[in-house]
């Protein structure tokens, strides 16, 4: 077979063949190495990319949980509306791209065909609104307000409406049971922002563009629990976006229900009484300014004394939270935030800061005892106190002779506290303080929780202010440039003030210390802080973080996660001091500044404790403060520019107590009328099907003028002549 002579196999050719072979196999090795690099070393990265490539998510929104009152009455729930949606994926499969279907749909919905088509088109840089901004795989809502008739027409003829669904869909609602609108406490929802969508994109609960997120109040604090988990259907799509299969499916988990400690009935009473008190205050003439009180804002807080749970919390001016549902209009939003309407969005119970006036006095009392003064010692209560020619009046302008600290609380004697504050100031070194001054009066205020958040489960809480030496220094550093620019020697009062502040605003002056000792000057507190303090005096000294959320109950009622109130400290006083202060506050209600508001109160059965406060605000009318407690409840109320503590706020607080305990003005208790003689201990039951057995709430019927008249026997004590409490 091999006739051909074997020539040609030279050494050169052999070597060349080996070279060829080496070259060939190095190429193959290169490929193998690169293959290993892509598939094994970086494989994960590429599989993730492949996943992003071909999986499209369609999100089914979870039904948001309800916010319930302590007995299960919904304060925020969902109502079902008929929402007609169009599926682009389905429409695009039709030859005319769904034009015919949408035209027919427009006919049924009494809309213009063009409007319907505009609603389901996808947004891009060239498309003006309306257009769909969300995922093209998501059913696009055409209308939120279809009638049953229209929905039936669509659902009965599915062949005429491929890709169109008419489904009942849950929409948020704030029903305000019994008139308890609870607006600022509940908060509101608003559409999710682009940033939030991006952030949540790869989490297991991604946002829909149409999603709503809690922005304020309970809706925000408990947003995660209320929101539940959106269901996600993952579709596999091809390079043209056509669905070629369905991948993993996570069903939606409906949001849990939030049970609050709020009692809708008490809330209704509190809101009504706060508003009524403010209307009444506006009828009173302010003797200082000669014009009626403005009563421009107010707040009331009802706490369970022993736990710090919030039974009612109202802020005025208020608004209807339903304006947020379905997107707030620009006009409504402007109204809610405008200065003329005095920012109804603000929750003044936790965000309203003002000088506390005399309800502050329990703090210097405790501070004085801590500084070594005897509670039952003799303290002179002259009608005025002078320091170097400057006269600080006892606002009642009435001397009481030598009295105990307890009596000083009862009669709210300013001069007793002036002297104590002044002495401590001197002890700290006065204008030129010793190193690390004790500042006992200020330290005690911090220990009472002032100048810090109470930790209430609501967003946006304000801290208030304890104007100690450190604060003075900081405040001066921040403002001195401005003061030195505007200050003028011998100018107007403001100019003069700025001039003085520029020179020595960093120094704690005697006047500052004296003003502070009665809760005036630069002192700022919020109603919730004062309620926390008075509840602590009532409960034996525990400063509770006020809590509204009581439990989170899953939609099927199976999982109950109770929210236990936390404490942020103990009152800095001995049990003896506390009980003595308690006695004094009882005295305020029985024979002191608040006694005229508690005529006929069954003091033996339900011991009432109170402290009134009337705070001066430069350039404004006085702030009315009223802090009270019984064994079970603590109520603090304030009205800005409302007048005196007992005068403006007294009747409202009394009426709330009457409603709680079912009392009339004569002190007769009717257990049937009592809304909540003891704090609600049980949690409402949520049935497996999600329904909640809630009692009916009837609107509050305020007492008639005859009913609210003080009992004849007790006789009305003469109302205080002055604005003192």
């Amino acid at each position: 077979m091999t006739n051909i002579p074997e020539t040609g196999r030279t050494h050169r050719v052999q070597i060349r063949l080996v070279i060829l072979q080496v070259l060939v196999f190095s190429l193959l090795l290169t490929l193998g190495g690169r293959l290993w690099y892509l598939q094994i070393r970086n494989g994960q990265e590429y599989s993730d990319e492949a996943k992003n490539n071909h999986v499209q998510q369609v999100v089914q929104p979870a039904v948001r949980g309800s916010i319930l009152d302590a007995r299960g009455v919904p304060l925020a729930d969902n109502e079902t509306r008929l929402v007609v949606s169009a599926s682009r994926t389905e429409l695009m499969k039709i030859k005319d791209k769904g034009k015919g279907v949408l035209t027919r749909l427009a006919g049924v919905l009494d809309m213009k065909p063009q409007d319907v088509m505009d609603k389901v088109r996808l947004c891009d840089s060239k498309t003006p609104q309306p257009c769909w901004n969300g995922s093209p795989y998501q059913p696009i809502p055409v209308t939120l307000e279809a009638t049953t008739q229209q929905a039936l027409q669509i659902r009965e003829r599915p062949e005429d409406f491929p890709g169109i669904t008419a489904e009942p869909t849950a929409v948020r609602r704030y029903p305000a049971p019994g008139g308890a609108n609870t607006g600022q406490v509940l908060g509101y929802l608003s559409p999710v922002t682009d940033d939030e969508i991006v952030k949540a994109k790869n989490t297991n609960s991604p946002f829909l563009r149409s999603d709503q997120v809690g922005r304020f109040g309970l809706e925000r604090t408990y947003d995660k629990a209320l929101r539940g988990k959106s269901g996600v259907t993952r579709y596999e799509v091809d390079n043209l976006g056509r669905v070629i299969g369905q991948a993993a499916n996570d069903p939606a988990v409906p949001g849990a229900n939030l049970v609050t400690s709020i009692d809708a009935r008490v809330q209704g009473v509190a809101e009504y009484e706060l508003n009524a008190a403010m209307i009444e205050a506006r009828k009173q003439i302010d003797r200082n300014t000669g014009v009626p009180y403005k009563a421009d804002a107010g707040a009331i807080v009802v706490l369970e004394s022993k736990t710090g749970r919030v039974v009612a919390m109202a802020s005025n001016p208020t608004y209807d939270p339903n304006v947020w549902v379905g997107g707030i209009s620009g006009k409504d939003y402007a109204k809610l935030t405008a200065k003329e309407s005095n920012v109804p969005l603000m929750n003044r119970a936790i965000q309203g800061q003002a000088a506390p006036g005399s309800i502050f006095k329990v703090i210097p009392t405790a501070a004085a005892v801590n500084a070594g003064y005897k509670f039952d010692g003799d303290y002179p209560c002259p009608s005025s106190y002078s320091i170097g020619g400057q006269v600080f009046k006892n606002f009642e302008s009435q001397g009481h002779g030598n009295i105990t600290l307890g009596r000083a609380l009862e009669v709210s004697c300013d001069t007793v506290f002036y002297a104590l504050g002044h002495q401590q100031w001197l002890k700290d070194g006065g204008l030129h303080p010793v190193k690390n001054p004790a500042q006992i009066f200020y330290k005690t205020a911090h220990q009472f929780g002032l100048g810090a958040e109470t930790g209430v489960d609501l967003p946006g809480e304000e801290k208030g202010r304890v104007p100690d030496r450190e604060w003075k220094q900081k405040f001066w550093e921040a403002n001195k440039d401005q003061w030195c620019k505007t200050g003028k020697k011998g100018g107007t009062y403001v100019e003069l003030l700025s001039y003085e502040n520029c020179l020595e605003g960093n120094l704690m002056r005697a006047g500052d210390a004296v003003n502070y000792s009665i809760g005036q000057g630069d002192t700022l507190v919020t109603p919730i802080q004062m309620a926390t303090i008075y509840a602590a005096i009532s409960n034996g000294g525990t400063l509770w973080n006020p809590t509204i959320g009581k439990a989170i109950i899953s939609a099927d009622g199976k999982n109950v996660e109770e929210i236990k109130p936390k404490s942020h400290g103990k009152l800095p006083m001995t049990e003896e001091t506390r009980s003595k202060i308690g006695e004094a506050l009882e005295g305020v209600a029985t024979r002191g500044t608040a006694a005229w508001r508690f005529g006929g109160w069954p003091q033996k059965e339900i011991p009432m404790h109170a402290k009134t406060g009337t705070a001066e605000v430069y350039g404004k009318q006085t702030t009315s403060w009223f802090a009270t407690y019984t064994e079970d409840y603590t109520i603090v109320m304030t009205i800005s520019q409302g007048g005196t503590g007992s005068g403006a706020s007294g009747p409202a607080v009394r009426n709330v107590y009457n409603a709680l305990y079912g009392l009339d003005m004569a002190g007769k208790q009717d257990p049937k009328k009592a809304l909540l003689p003891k704090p609600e201990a049980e949690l409402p039951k949520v049935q497996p099907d999600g329904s909640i057995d809630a009692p009916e709430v009837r609107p509050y019927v305020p007492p008639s003028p005859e009913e609210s008249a003080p009992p004849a026997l007790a006789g009305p004590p003469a109302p205080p002549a002055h604005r003192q409490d």
Partner: protein
Amino acid sequence: MQTANKFSVARYAPQRGPVAKLTARDSVLRRLDWPILLSAFALSALGSLLVWSATRNRTTLNQGDPYYFLLRHAMNTGIGLVLMIGTIALGHRTLRGVVPILYGLSLVLIIAVLTPLGATINGAHAWIVIGGGFSLQPSEFVKITIILGMAMLLAARVDAGDLAHPDHRTVMKALCLAAAPMGIVMLMPDLGSVMVMVVIVLGVLLASGASNRWVAGLLASGAAGAVLIWQLGVLDEYQINRFAAFANPELDPAGVGYNTNQARIAIGSGGLTGSGLFKGSQTTGQFVPEQQTDFVFTVAGEELGFLGAGLILVLLGVVLWRACVIARETTELYGTVVCAGIIAWFAFQAFENIGMTLGIMPVAGLPLPFVSYGGSSMFAVWVAIGLLQSIRVQRPLSA
């Protein structure tokens, strides 16, 4: 060597029936290189599965029949096998005699492509549509005729014992023989095929024992030619874009970089064992264009993983290794040169094709031998296998 001559079976073999002929110890069947045949067949069989997976959902291509490409690929493989058997039967030496005719025929075919008979697919005007869904890519056959033609010229005087190595004149002639069809293919422009042909010419010259100066000179002129082509703007825009996308795939992920990116995602996502045949999301979702032809390797990468894609490399390695063995074992330069040409062809084409899917080579429209869908390519590579087998079968027994 001597014993081989003494006991040359062909000379003394008695007359035998056809079955006996095929089963006898010295039969063609026994002398075939089975590793190369089985590897090549395995590649084609694997290819049919990959082509099937890639086209099952491509309704615009498969005319609604998910088996359309599977059946055609199998049929192409069958025709390829028949062509191989025919080539073995004819023998490479017989073919040597008809090389001028084959050469002339292939020239006519590629010139026909330039006439209105030709069709443009993917930017290259390289096809002749025959009708009935068939089309011919003559440049695939030109690769064979260049190998055969050059081998014939270069080996003639060496095999005759006149020269130890081909002289400059012969080399010159051989280069001219290759240059003519390459020039025409360049006009199509089918740059990928030209690249393969340049490498084939290099391999052929290398194995022929031509002077080092020729090899070096060809390498240099190849590089210079590439620069010249780039500078003169002979390239079409699509070709420049392909190179740009190779240099930076992130440049335009929706445009020219799309192919490269999607191919890399497909292969990368396969991991060690792949997603399983028909289960690759990139493949089912048709994210990789031209996946049944030039990008068929991505199907293997995604659905069969590193093991499956590695198997393709191993099978190609077996084919090339056996081809190298055949090249070394054959005693005549003609066979050696033909082997070398085929090795250069397969190796470079496989490297370029797989390399572009892996992102280490620029995109060029070249099929993966045996695996890619495409009749012309399939036929050409099986004819090449036939040539290798023929060289092996006719080698001296002692080797």
